[in-house]
């Protein structure tokens, strides 16, 4: 079988990681969030974007990990990086300095304008669920040239109203970012386990531009907390290739084994 031939079976989660990886370019300087973004970014590096610069907020610039880090500060990142800087330098010179082309984020909840919540569900002072908080995300979302988001789709995560805006997407719609003095693009693409969404150029509302193989419009609508719209030029996402799946599965198997080993 040719390496770029469509693969056999794959999970929705694998599809999400593969389509997220494809969004990255070889020349990108990418600020990598932990979890799903890290898998996508390293899959990109191990397939079509070997020269991509991966930056983790722990200070590692140009990390080339052989296994996915469990935390954003694993020794693996430092050992394989071009250089490692202090955390204040990372946020001041590299992020605020405007050196990052893509920030790759995830979140617990997102609204139709790609604002993200990772802080609380319920009231801030008396939350129903206390989530980890923003970490690097508030400034990643405003300082990177553009933002990619990867997040599994469900009515719990795709909500009509966010209880808390941890990081800014397109605010309340057109002109929101510019009114705050921002010149960066904000979220340009959202990769889920069911589809790819992009902000409509006029309304800044996320619309589905591509459905993953086998996913119906009805299924995508059912997993979304707002009335979901679809692009007139709606496409079907190309299934993961055999090579993409192989590289991803190898990476995840290596990582799982590494995270189980005793210190």
């Amino acid at each position, binding site marked *: 079988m040719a390496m770029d031939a469509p693969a056999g079976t794959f999970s929705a989660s694998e599809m999400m990681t593969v389509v997220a990886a494809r969004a990255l370019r070889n020349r990108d300087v990418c600020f990598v969030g932990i979890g799903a973004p890290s898998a996508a970014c390293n899959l990109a590096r191990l397939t079509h974007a070997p020269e991509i610069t991966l930056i983790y907020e722990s200070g590692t610039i140009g990390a080339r990990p052989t296994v996915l880090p469990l935390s954003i500060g694993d020794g693996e990142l430092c050992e394989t990086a071009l250089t490692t800087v202090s*955390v204040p330098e990372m946020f001041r010179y590299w*992020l605020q300095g405007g050196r990052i082309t893509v920030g790759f984020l995830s979140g617990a909840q997102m609204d139709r304008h790609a604002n993200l919540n990772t802080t609380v569900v319920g009231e801030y002072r008396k939350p129903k669920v206390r989530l980890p908080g923003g970490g690097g995300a508030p400034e990643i979302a405003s300082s990177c040239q553009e933002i990619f988001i990867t997040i599994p789709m469900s009515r719990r995560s795709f909500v009509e109203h966010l209880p808390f805006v941890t990081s800014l997407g397109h605010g309340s719609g057109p002109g929101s970012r510019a009114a705050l003095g921002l010149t960066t693009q904000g979220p340009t693409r959202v990769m889920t386990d069911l589809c790819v969404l992009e902000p409509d150029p006029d309304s800044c509302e996320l619309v589905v531009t591509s459905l993953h193989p086998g996913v119906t419009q009805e299924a995508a609508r059912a997993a979304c907390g707002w009335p979901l719209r679809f692009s007139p030029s709606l496409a079907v996402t190309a299934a993961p290739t055999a090579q993409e799946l192989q590289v991803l599965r190898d990476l995840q198997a290596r990582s799982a084994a590494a995270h189980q080993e005793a210190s």
Partner: protein
Amino acid sequence: MADFCSLAEAVAANVRDGDCVAMEGFTHLIPFAAAHEVLRQGRRHLTLVRMTPDLIYDQLIGMGVADRLVFSWGGNPGVGSLHRLRDAVENDWPQPLQLEEHSHAAMANAYEAGAANMPFAAFRGYIGVDLPKVNPRIRSIECPFTGERLAAVPAIRPDVTIIHAQRADRAGNVLLDGIVGVQKQAVLAAKRAIVTVEETVDELAAPGLNCVVLPAWTVTAIAVVPGGAYPSYAQGYYRRANSFYTQWDEISRDRDRFRAWMQEQVLERGPEVFRAYSPRAR
């Protein structure tokens, strides 16, 4: 000038009830042994400052040591929630915990301002987000040259900063390298600094000329505690115990199980147990 002493002496002399304490280390070099000593000595009413509370503050918060937490990301990295932190915030268990919540950029800037003896830090941040609405210590300032509105946060000035480092020479100069986080800033911002180290050496033998070296006169006390960063790691000495971070999810989920674990593994033990985690020291 840095005094070499036991960890118990270092904590007894430098950490007081009600202190503002920063224990830093960004995934790497987290000073777990020192935190456990603070627990054993029964300190109370602390303000705990740390960008990523991690397991180290989950343990302290769950044992009721802290009245207040200043932080920017409170999860178990790659695993999930910090259950003791959540229980304190959601249910006031074992006692209420006041939060001062920031972003990473804000805390990194605030430590740097503290080290630079500035009253506050200005940076381009918190744009279009909700944290400034719930944290009155996030304010803004107009640039006197361009008129741009910038975020402003007060400098972090801990009473005591506690870090773990790879080694110290016999004069008390301290070296750390690898992911160096905000430790240099946190030490220089503090009134007192305790450093635990993997070992003391005749020569620091810096692997490069630009790794972080803290002169002995910036450090108050040094205690040699091999393995003292476990289950985090010390680059060049031992690796991160990722499996323990995963196990902590189960240990910490239940209040009784957590308390039993802390009693058995922390309160009834001493810093010498960390030696087992450092292959070089065994």
